């Protein structure tokens, strides 16, 4: 087989294209990428800037997920809410209760398949947000128990094997939420998870992690990554093909989910 100049040029171009073609970030549509929507309520836009991006960047580097790093900020009444199945609600201090319309939309969103991660970024000692959230959730899920998620919950093994959730602070050693339709549509964490991800413009971490230092930050990333993986794969890791292997890797001691209220 002989190769003429035209063929050689075509081959070279193809090789260059193959090398230069992006392996990540390629998508065929605007909904192909997995992204996070942040609930645009109160001052949430200012609370944890560039944190979602950092988490999603880590997700893109560590996993096969095709991510959209930039978050979209959405109100519960926005039409595009239902094009973003993963919603994060940052909050600190007491919050304005949800309006009837917001509550109805949020309920519809969660029952239709959406996942809401509520992150309490309040300073230690401030329980205003916590009180508000518990009140809202009791109105939102009057028919469901608010649970402490046991360490056998899938969220602790969707990618990394975790014992407890980590964040910027160590306020609690557990996640909370409700169980609906064999999944947890609401997950509540109180360790300022996203606070551990923020970076300054030149790369330094925005906030120190307390008390565990950089190891805690890494574990916070793992927690965040597991949550993203849970939003996309749900109970995939509970399938039998995985269970035996996972149990073998950790000296598993199951603490089942407990009702809190």
């Amino acid at each position, binding site marked *: 087989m002989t190769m003429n100049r035209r063929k050689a040029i075509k081959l070279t171009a193809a090789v260059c294209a193959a090398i230069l073609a992006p392996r990540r970030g390629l998508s065929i549509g605007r909904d*192909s990428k997995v992204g996070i929507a942040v609930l645009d309520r109160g001052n949430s836009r200012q609370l944890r800037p560039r944190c979602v991006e950092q988490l999603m960047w880590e997700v893109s580097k*560590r996993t*096969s997920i095709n991510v959209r790093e930039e978050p979209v900020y959405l109100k519960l009444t926005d039409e595009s809410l239902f094009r973003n199945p993963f919603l994060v609600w940052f909050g600190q201090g007491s919050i304005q209760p949800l309006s009837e319309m917001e509550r109805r939309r949020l309920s519809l969103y969660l029952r239709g398949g959406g996942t809401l991660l509520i992150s309490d970024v309040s300073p230690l000692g401030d329980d205003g947000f916590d009180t508000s959230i518990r009140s809202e959730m009791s109105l939102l899920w009057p028919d469901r128990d608010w649970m402490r998620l046991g360490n056998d919950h899938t969220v602790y093994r969707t990618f990394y094997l975790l014992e407890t959730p980590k964040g910027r602070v160590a306020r609690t050693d557990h996640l909370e939420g409700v169980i609906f339709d064999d999944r947890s549509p609401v997950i509540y964490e109180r360790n300022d998870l996203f606070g551990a991800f923020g970076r300054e413009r030149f790369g330094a971490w925005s906030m120190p992690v307390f008390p565990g230092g950089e190891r805690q930050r890494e574990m916070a990333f*793992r927690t965040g990554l597991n949550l993203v993986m849970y939003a996309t794969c749900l109970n995939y890791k509970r399938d039998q093909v995985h269970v035996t292997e996972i149990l073998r890797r950790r000296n598993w001691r199951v603490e089942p989910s407990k009702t809190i209220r």
Partner: protein
Amino acid sequence: MLRDLFDTDGQFNSAHWVVLSDWSGLTWTAVGLLVCILIGFSWWNTQPLNRMRRITLLALRTATLVVITFLFIQPGIRLEHRNIVRNHVAVLIDQSRSMLLPGQSSGSRLDQLKRYLEANLAVFKSWQTEHQVDYFTFGRYVKAVDDLKSIQALGEMTDLAGALDDVQSRYTSGDLAAVIILSDGTDTTKLKEISDPSLIPNRVQIAIKKLNAPVHTVFIGPDKVAPDLAIQDLSYDEFAFVRNAVTIDAKVSVFGYEQLRIPVTMKRNGKELGRQVLEVVPGKQNYEFSFEFVPDETGKSSFTFEVGSAPGEQIVINNRREFVIRVIRDKIRVLQVVGRPSWDERFLRKLLKKNPNVDLISFFILRTSSSLQVARRNEMSLIPFPTQELFEQQLGSFDLIIFQNFTYRGYQMRQYMPLIKRYVQNGGGFVMVGGDISFANGGYAGTPIAEFLPVTLRGGQLGGGEKSDYRPTLTPAGQFHPITNLKLSRDENQTAWQSLPMLSGLNQVAGLAPDSVVLLEHPTKRVGVKKSPVVAVRNFGKGRVLSVLTDSTWRWDFEAFGLGADNRNYYKFWGNAIRWLIRDPDLKTIRVTTGKDRYAVGDQVSVTVRLQADDYRPAIDQPVRVEVGKRHNEQTSTEAPIIRQGKTDKGGLFTFSVPIKTDGVWRVVARSGEDQELVDQDVFVVTSEPIELATTKTNPLLLKSISSIGQGRFLDDGDDLADLERKPPLLLQVNRRKDVPLWASAWLLLLAIILPSTEWFLRRRWGLL
């Protein structure tokens, strides 16, 4: 008798004794006492006499008193002409098939029964003045019969309780004089094994008592039962699941044989499935057998359980039983392989997990070789991608494989691609769902997988095709195809598709495979002159393939839900797709069905052929050829298959009925198409219902029990019916009456004079006066 003596003109129909005097009870008592006193006085008065004289005088005195009393009573014969309402004697004649079995002497039990009836016709005739004799045959219900000679033993069951219930419902209370049952006692229903009155269910006992008349039973049958092997019972589920073990249990009874070795076989579709030996030992009557098999394909299968015939066995029809088992899918085993977690994967997995008919094996690639690894292996929940296990060892166990935005690159999968192609060729279902690493982006161009996809791929054709939102449109084929059939009517279906949320993203393809069918296409974007496919299907070998060239169908679920629209369309679309991919029998373009799996000999079997075009529109005015014949290996030279040819109607249907006159396993094969390439078949069993002939045994004890509860008599065919107890008929009115006084006779008066005169003469002569 009395009527004959006193009614010489025949003007009356009744005669009986009466007392014509109208003395009161007190007078009767006084007269009675006086007679006793007078006899006692005579006894005392004659003591001194010798024995001869004493007896003579006492006899004369007594005779005198009797005559006087007779005159005092004034007896007579009352002749009457009465209107009588005859009550009914219901004669129930067992006409079940067991009556064909040998009877007491020569001939069948039915012959024996007819002989008995004939011998007792005179008795029935003699009852006719007071009773109307009604003859019925019975099986489950009773049926009036006029001509006793015409009775045939064709009944498929014997239900004595049901028959008695039916008799009771036909007569008003008190209208029955008696019920006479003539039977061999082989009930085939709830009274089957009953041999004692106490074992008869309360409900039946009440029904018998409600008849309010004596129930007599006449046992018709031989004293000694003919030797026989019989299938007593077959236990199986009419539905079985493919690849799940099926157990068929059989019970065989043996009568009259002490030692025997007979083969017992189970056949499936004419092929022997298993063989065992019936080893008869003395004293044991029932033998049980169990056969197990694992069906490997769906559809109806015919089964034949057969016990070999024993030497001298007269009845062999009860040695064979045929039946049909419908093999259906247990669960649809689906392998979902996902190249990377995404919203599309998340909602499709939710859908598959929610479907109770799906047994889902998911495998997601959570990280690739280029992903950063910042944790030790034991800190992660990842397991290796078991390619060999999935695509070599277990491949055949899946009904459907879904490659969802999955690239084979990097997993050393090239060697398994021919296996996947062969899997599809052999009947497997395959779906490729779009995404950034699917179709051409996944490097499938030029691979064995590309050979069976509905779309053609070009190497190096990377990148997304269409980033903006669009609403796919139904193609003409899509308007009828079962996958895109969201609603029953065409208009509603069209509206449903137009109301779905828009999609985003489209995988680029080079074109369409020649025999593929596009169901949904992009509204504007084109591949050459044709619009770009969004959903396309293709038959490949025996398998089916679906390509969904986008990764955004999840919006039909979540977004539709948020908009308050019907997100069930998402479930419907994928549900339809799964059914089509696994070749759900209901989605075949040619379907032939018979109404039932089991028919009795002589029944009309209705056959329906439904024909659809490739796009699932009704195929109108298309020629269809249907052959109804015995299964191939049962065909005999005398039984040519029944052939019907015709054309489908407006609904794409071709229907007809055909009578089947011989038992066995029958097969209906429908063909259509230019080369008769469209074929479907159905199987049904025609049976002479051997329940009645399951045993040669009789059950006289059951008849005895019934007559015991019914306060009647149990007879056998040597007994006469003449003196059977019957309730009297009802008297309605007396038209004429005549009293014949017996006391107003000169002879009697003469006796009344002569007797005391003689006594007076003798007393005087013997010196007593």
